[in-house]
């Protein structure tokens, strides 16, 4: 993001930047988007903790609502607690493997959904 825009010779620098921008254009017209970089990696890392909590929370919320609706308190909540935990762990796992793949293959960022 932070490029060293022109203290020394802005116009000479502009040439280089133009070339880089054209290369990006060509690449974008092709197939895969480029790797995210450190900032994107940091962002992915920050997801993991919240992802776990969010999964459990959604599970409990849905279980509680279904219990209220069907009058089966507290069984669906217990069931969905575990399902939600599973979803949270799966999300966290995806975040970590997605980041890993990005680091070693230099593949596209954010394709953390394809498994196996």
């Amino acid at each position: 993001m932070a490029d060293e825009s022109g203290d020394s010779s802005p116009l000479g620098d502009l040439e280089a930047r133009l070339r880089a921008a054209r290369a990006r254009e060509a690449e974008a017209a092709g197939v895969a988007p480029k790797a995210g970089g450190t900032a994107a990696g940091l962002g992915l890392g920050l997801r993991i903790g919240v992802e776990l909590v969010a999964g459990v929370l959604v599970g409990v919320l849905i279980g509680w609502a279904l219990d209220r609706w069907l009058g089966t308190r507290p069984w669906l909540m217990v069931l969905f607690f575990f399902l939600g935990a599973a979803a949270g762990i799966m999300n966290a796992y995806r975040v970590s493997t997605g980041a890993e793949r990005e680091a070693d293959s230099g593949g596209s960022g954010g394709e953390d959904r394809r498994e196996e």
Partner: protein
Amino acid sequence: MAQSPVEQFRIERLLPIHLGGVDISFTNSAAVMLAAALLAAALFVLAMRNRALVPGRWQSVAEILYQGGAGMLRDTVGAEGRKYFPFVFTLFMFLLFGNLIGLIPYTFTFTSHIIVTAALAVFVFIGVTVIGFAKHGLHYLKLFLPEGTPIFVAPLLVVIEILSYLSRPFSLAMRLAINMLVGHVLLQLLAGFVIALGVFGIVPIAFMGGIFLLELLVAVLQAYVFTILSCIYLNDAIHMH
């Protein structure tokens, strides 16, 4: 001076408006949101007023922000994401200015209220889901059943996948709100120690200096994270991995 650390998050009605029994008062939260939107717009309008080939100081700021936003979208979604750039960039600027304004003493941090971040997250969630269904039709539901799943675990997996999908707005909203809330409470608590410790108050002041710098980083980073996660969800909807 004995203020509660959460006093700073209290909503105050600046301009009480009641419409048909609904309280839609103009609050301090709304005022800061308006300020964030206006400042972000003003930055770009004023910085780009006299455009030059060799950018001046403000033009550089605007260009770096623009390139950052465009690069973020391009790296995560690719060329198809370009038409969503206005939304993504607006979201980024709004959150960035909201977080940064909140760090100015005596202002209000609207991003520390989970209802604000939840509204944004739900908006992104619904938008992404609509885009997914519009682009792939009912094939979008395949997102919940990865290919090559053995049939006997499929029912369980579908439920887990749906929960995982539904947890997205929660994680998105919680991450931003909790980060801002914790940082501001911490600063307020440390500030309380400054008075209590008298001369030795210099220690918490030094801590506060460091934590303020950290909060500055967190403010920028969390705006970035919220936006890039929206981009990643958008990418999932468009490319259906």
